[in-house]
């Protein structure tokens, strides 16, 4: 029997620890610039959350081109955290971002616990920042400790950042590990308000005629529809391992994808690569979500989160 949708629209508000979002459709770091680029085609104020591109303490020039290459149902990238550093971000981008009503979640990355802690303190002290996402998973930044691949390092960096600021802390993890559940437990033990699953999957694309990797950096991170089953699997495993909320990321390109992540255990999602090839997707998803919740007879997002049998 088809379920008759409730006449009252379901509430889209969703809560992740200390962070409350107007709806679960966020845009992922590194896939939405500094938001301003999108102002004329996306109503930024309708988004559930905006994550500007990851910032580091010092400016980073990023990797040499090519920085992205299309692969089957996906995109391989090695941007190399090209950014102007925290000072330029606070001066040039944050005033615009915080003038929006959508929650602003600032993504930060560092090489040491101290880097992450100082960035969290700096950014957390800026008015209007809703939360901080620790990018513990960027595959393109070599040389630093890889906090996303060791549960104890993950716990300690999250705990230290958490102590440095009163704003909620989200831990964004890499799928390139043996046990994502173990790493997520580390993040939860460190006091993360939520875990974000996942960043890109390590890969390589080769030009056999030139016998060379296509990306300037050699290896890169795979994103897009190709990685959705992997990200969904990570959500599934972590949902069973920790109590803290999950934000699902990876290959989301349609409302079906969003619903799959919510039912599997994500309380919110981030749209990444799809922003590049379908730049108004986030708006359509927000429009379509109430009907899909209604189809399941749910009055809120929370009612369906993690209801996978």
């Amino acid at each position: 029997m088809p379920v008759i949708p409730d006449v009252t629209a379901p509430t889209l508000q969703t809560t992740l620890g200390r962070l409350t979002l107007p709806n679960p459709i966020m845009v992922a770091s590194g896939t939405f610039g500094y938001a301003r680029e999108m102002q004329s085609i996306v109503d930024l104020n309708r988004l559930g959350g905006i994550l500007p591109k990851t910032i580091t303490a010092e400016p980073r020039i990023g990797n040499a081109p090519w920085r992205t290459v299309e692969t089957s149902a996906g995109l391989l990238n090695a941007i190399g955290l090209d950014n102007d550093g925290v000072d330029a971000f606070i001066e040039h981008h944050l005033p615009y971002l915080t003038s929006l009503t959508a929650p602003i979640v600032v993504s930060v990355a560092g090489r040491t616990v101290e880097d992450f802690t100082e960035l969290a303190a700096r950014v957390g002290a800026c008015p209007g920042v809703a939360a901080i996402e620790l990018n513990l998973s960027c595959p393109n930044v070599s040389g630093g400790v890889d906090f996303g691949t060791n549960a104890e390092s993950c716990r300690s960096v999250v705990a230290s950042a958490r102590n440095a600021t009163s704003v909620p802390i989200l831990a964004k993890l890499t799928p390139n590990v043996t046990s994502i559940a173990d790493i997520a437990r580390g993040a939860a033990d460190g006091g993360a308000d939520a875990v974000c699953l996942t960043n890109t999957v390590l890969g390589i694309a080769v030009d056999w005629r030139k016998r060379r990797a296509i990306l300037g950096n050699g290896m890169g991170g795979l994103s897009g529809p190709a990685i959705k089953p992997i990200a969904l699997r990570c959500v599934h495993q972590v949902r069973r391992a920790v109590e803290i909320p999950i934000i699902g990321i990876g290959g989301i390109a349609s409302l079906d994808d969003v619903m799959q992540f919510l039912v599997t255990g994500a309380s919110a999602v981030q749209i990444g690569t799809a922003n590049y090839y379908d730049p108004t997707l986030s708006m359509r998803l927000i429009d379509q979500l109430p009907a899909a919740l209604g189809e399941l007879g749910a009055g809120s997002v929370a009612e369906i989160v993690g209801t996978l049998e």
Partner: protein
Amino acid sequence: MATLHAKHYADAISHLDAPLLLNEQVAENTYLMRVRAPAIAATAKPGQFVMIRLAGLDAPLIGRAFAIYDVHPDPESNAADSVDLIYLRKGALTRPLSEAPVGTMVSLWGPLGNAFRDDPCERLIMAVGGIGQTPMLMAGRDALQRGWADHVEMIYGARRSSLLAGVSDFRDAGFAVTTCTDDGSEGRQALVPDVLAERIQTLQQESPDAKIRVLTCGPEIMMEKVAEVGAAQGVDVQVSMETPMACGIGICFSCVAKVIQEDGEWDYKRTCVDGPIFDAEQLCWG
């Protein structure tokens, strides 16, 4: 200090699914497509581009950039209506596109990027090669119509005659076109930068005070040589860069080129928002 803060934020982009009104071969391996996209046609400036995909298909996944070749009004209402693009049949997008019947839906967003600067001059010379002629119809016509150039010339190079596309459009628009081909099958058997250097020299001898400006688009190696010619002969060159893009809007940081900053150091800048048009002396080639 380096800064990624773009000077230019697109304020009039539209994203729409639109039908192909025309999709026909215009030269060897070269096609012209016309798309009904009134919002884009209404605001497109010379030098801007659009991103295109086949609507509803995930292969290829990522959009491709195409310079806006021309815009047309609706014949009845006279309001801006459609956009023309000229493309070379090459790979994952343009092969299936070249076989798509009229009425096929494409997804496109634009107009994107900055535009050619309309600095006044007596002579505007457009030095183009390969498929780099595509942004020049709008640029040269704008120069003549709005009067920022007294004369518009084009030096257009291709490997062979059959690959030249749009020459009659350029002549109809009032540009003096010199063609050159690698095999001598049409026009001069010479390279675009060499023909340009000769032409500038002639013009400078005829009227030393006349202001000459150059616009260039085409293979990077050709544009680099054109930039060298401009520098050697004291002529400003604007370059239309075509770096590999994934979004065209400034949100992915794929499309960077080395651009010299105020402090004299280069920084990677996004071609899709800080360009695609750059002053030649701003660019760090190679």
